[in-house]
Structures are given as C-alpha cells and as structure tokens.
C-alpha cells in the first residue's frame, strides 16, 4: 500500500500550477500524477517522495488536501499488460474507482496506481497472481 496525496482544485486558471509549485519549492519530488476534472472542479492526485511534508506545505498554502491509501502495482510494460491485471481484479469482484499509470527509468515494468475499496484484498489477489505491488518506501523512491 502506498500513500497518495489528493488536492481539491477549483476550476480556475493557475491553481494546478500553484499546487505543483508549492510541492516543488519544498524540495519534494512528484513521482506520479494525474488530474481528474469535472466542469466545476478538479482533483489533483499524486505520489510524492515525502507525503507528510507535501501535506504540510499544501495546507500552509490554503489547499484542501488529504492522504489516501492506494495500491501501486507493477505490470509488464508490454501490450496487454494492464488488461491482464484488470481482468484479474474484475473476475474477483474488485471495482476500480480510478487508476493512472506511468513508466519509470529505474524499472522495466510500468507502475499502475489503483484506487479500490479493499486495498488488502486487492494486494493479496495481485500478489497471488504474480503481480508485484510496491511498498510505501519503494513508491517514494521510484
């Protein structure tokens, strides 16, 4: 399980830039990031090198931010890699609320961040199916 930072963003220009700038100035590195949006607002989700510090600087800058536990899983960086994992989850009745994926220089596999209802259940299932999930420390140091 790894910790993800979520930040509420009003749909107005410059807010994403300000949030990422706040994180950057504190010397924290963003490892992975995604932005979900509706016509009215957005949510920035990211995995960072220092979760506590990020939460602190964001709150100091007046952002609404929280930490959520998510699953980070490695899937083969090849065609069909993600599909295989999703099929495994679906067959076992685990719904995915959202996910985002990225590739890193340091690993051969792609990393997928998953938000599911039952983190432990998903991790056990994935590990059993031969998919490696990352620890907090591993995710922070991607």
């Amino acid at each position, binding site marked *: 399980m790894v910790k993800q930072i979520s930040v*509420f963003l*009003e749909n107005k220009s410059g807010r994403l830039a300000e949030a990422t700038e706040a994180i950057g100035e504190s010397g924290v590195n963003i490892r992975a990031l995604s932005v979900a949006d*509706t016509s*009215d*607002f957005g949510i920035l989700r990211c995995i960072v090198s220092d979760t506590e510090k990020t939460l602190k600087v964001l709150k100091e800058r*007046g952002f*609404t*931010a929280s930490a959520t536990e998510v699953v980070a899983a490695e899937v083969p960086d090849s065609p069909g890699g993600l599909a295989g994992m999703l099929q495994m989850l679906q067959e076992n009745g685990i719904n995915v609320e959202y996910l985002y994926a990225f590739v890193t220089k340091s690993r051969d596999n792609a990393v997928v961040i998953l*938000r599911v209802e039952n983190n432990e259940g998903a991790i056990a299932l994935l590990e059993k199916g031969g998919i490696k999930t990352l620890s907090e420390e591993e995710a922070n140091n991607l």
Partner: protein
Amino acid sequence: MSKQEVIWNKECECMGLEKKKELQLERLKALVARIYVNVPLYNKKMKDIGMEPGDVKELGDLAKLPFTTKEDLAANYPFGMFAVPMDDVIRIHSSSGTTGKPKVAGYTRNDIDTWAEVMARTLGCGNTTNKDVVQNAYGYGLFTGGLGAHYGAEKIGAAVVPISGGNTARQVLVMQDFGSTKLCSTPSYCLRLGEVLLEQGIDPADLKLNTAFLGAEPWTRELREQIEEKLKIDAIDIYGLTEVIGPGVSSECMVKNGLHVFDDHFLPEIIDPVTEKPVADGEMGELVFTTLTKEAFPVLRYRTRDISKLIPGECECGRTHVRMQRVTGRTDDMLIVRGVNVYPSQIESVLVKIPDVEPHYQIVVDRKGTMDTLEIWVEVSEKAFSDEIRGLEKLEKGIRAVLESSLLISVNLKLVEPKTIQRSEGKAKRIVDKRSVYDKA
C-alpha cells in the same frame, strides 16, 4: 398608455378623506381590541409599554403602538400569531422565512373575501372587467400569488385561466388561442414570454393581450419600458406580501405614478428604520403596514423592510387611496430571486446543519437573459473532501438538495477552495447581486 376606464369599487376607492379617516380609526380600535385579547404576543407587547386598547383614541396614536417583525413571526411559528380558533381558518399560505421557518398566513372566510376584493381593485386598476380573459401565470400553491389573483379575477367575473407558472410554450399557445387580454406574472417572466413570442415570429400586436399585472419581485422603470415596448401592452406594478395578505396590498393605476394602497384595509406608514419614528410626509423610509380588517392573521405595524415613500396629493384617476412609490430597496439583506424571497441567514442555517461543511458561503445572484440565477459557493473542508469525483459530486448534490428544499428555488452549487470566500472584519460579504432590480433612488 391606455386611459383609466374602470374603478372596481368607487365607494371605497374614491372615499372622501375625512370619511376614510373615521373608518380607519374605527377599524384600528377594533383591531387593537381584538388582538390584545386573542394574540398573546400583542397582549405582552402592549402591556410591556403600558398601553391598553382604550388608549387608541385617534389615528395618530398608531405611532405609539408596538411593531411586529419577521422575528416575531418566526418565534410564533406556525400559528401563534393567529387571532381566531383554527375552526374559523379556511386557508393557510406560507412563504420563506428568516431562520428556515416559513412565514405562515391563515385566512378566515371573510379574509378570503377581503383578499378577493383588494385583488379585484388591483385588476380594476388595469381596466379588467367581466369581458376579460385573465391568464394567471403566478404559481398556484403555498405561494399567495396564484390563488390571490385568481379569486380577484373571479370576483370581477373575468374568465380566469389558471395556468400557473412555467411551461412557456403552453403559455404562448393559451395566449394566442384563448385570446388572453390580461396577464398576471412576475416582471421577469413577462419579459421572457415577450422574447419567446418574438423568437416564434409572433407579432404581439396580433395578440389580444393589453395589460400585465406584474409583482412578486422588484423591477425598474427601464424594465417596464422594455416590457411595454416588446409586448405592446401596459405593464402595471402590483405589490403585496404574505404577512399582510399576499398580492393586493397596493397597485398602480393606469396613471402609473405610484401604487394605490388599499388603505381602508391596510394602513401604511413610513418610518426611519433606525430611530423607528415616522418620517416627515413624503420622505423615504421603511414601509410598515397595519391590517385593519384581517381576522385570522392580523398584523400591527408590520415592518416590511421594503423602502418606499408615500406620495402626497391626489391621483388623476380619481382614487383617494394613498399612493406609495414603487419599492426602491430593502433595509435587510433579503433577496428576491424569481419571485421567491431568499434570506442569506436561511442559507446559513441550512449549511451549518450539514456535517463537515463549513458555513462559509457566498451568494451570487445574476440575471441570465431574463431569468435570475442563484449561485451558492461553499468551501470544501478537509473533512468533506474526497479523492473521488463521485464523492465530491455526491457532496455537491446533497448540499444542493437540502438548500433547494429549504429555499424552494433551484440553486447552482459551486464547491470552492477554502479561504476563497472573503472573510471581512465584522459583517462578511455574503451576497453579490449583479442584477439591477431597483430603480436608482
């Protein structure tokens, strides 16, 4: 502009001033005697200032009597202000109140007759007779507009079309096919109808419509000109409030220079809202009404919070009813949105009850085309925040639903970041009203 041809009740509407004063005094004495005995609030208020009903000897004594405020109504919700047993109440209406509690008005059979009478006078002010077809586009229901106008039109013997509000396509069809000659609606809705007619290529000059009775929300002279120009009709400003009776408290006549207050039933005063003393004749101040004849829900010196003045002198139309200027503002922060009264305090009292929601809010009222929009900004607290879109949308919908059920009007809810809403020292700036609904004083 059409000429004044109709006066519904000449005897009352053109009564000599001396005779009227006698009638008003007689009715005021009877009112005070009645409420002193039957309404605990008035009994207490009068005892507190050491007054008894017998102390009212002339009309000038009115100024010594206690006021009634909307807070009094909230404290006596729902029926504590009624002066008759419920057996005698045959109708109950209500409108929104300040602390989430609606203002409740009860009517006896005589009250309903009085209401029909003053609404008949109102419609008569716009030359309505039994030959007319009255399209009543005020909402029917708890809101006083629909049934108030309905009974007045029926009393005259006009053919009433109880179409109620909304469904603009059907309004246009009825106007064309039924040959409506008179329209009752809010001014903004009337303008909307005018625009739809033009969009559909209907020439208003081909319609039989000649007069609109427009009330339930403030409007400007400029809006009147637009409506009259677009629809080729006379637009009459009518005034009323649930606490006094509903529509039918006062109305413009065809002269369109002030609204005649039906002052044999509703005695108006203008006071300084700060000192609470009557202002000099013809000065601006807060409108205060005493209901001289109402039985179920009489009010003594009710503070409307509406700003106006009484216009001295006689009116060309022949009516001797004193005239008030069209309302030019409020002494409180009440907003009127699409004809519905909205108090910021009401919004606050709803928000504080929702767990995890900060009671920091901002109200933005605007007019898109002809329709008012009410946008409410609410700050997302850490507790209410969710990393899932679904969660935030659920929050948004939930807040909107409780606000709408309390305000009785649709709301655009906008979630904003914390500290977005300005915290001022002292009174927070809660309201941004981008419309111009009042005449410039």
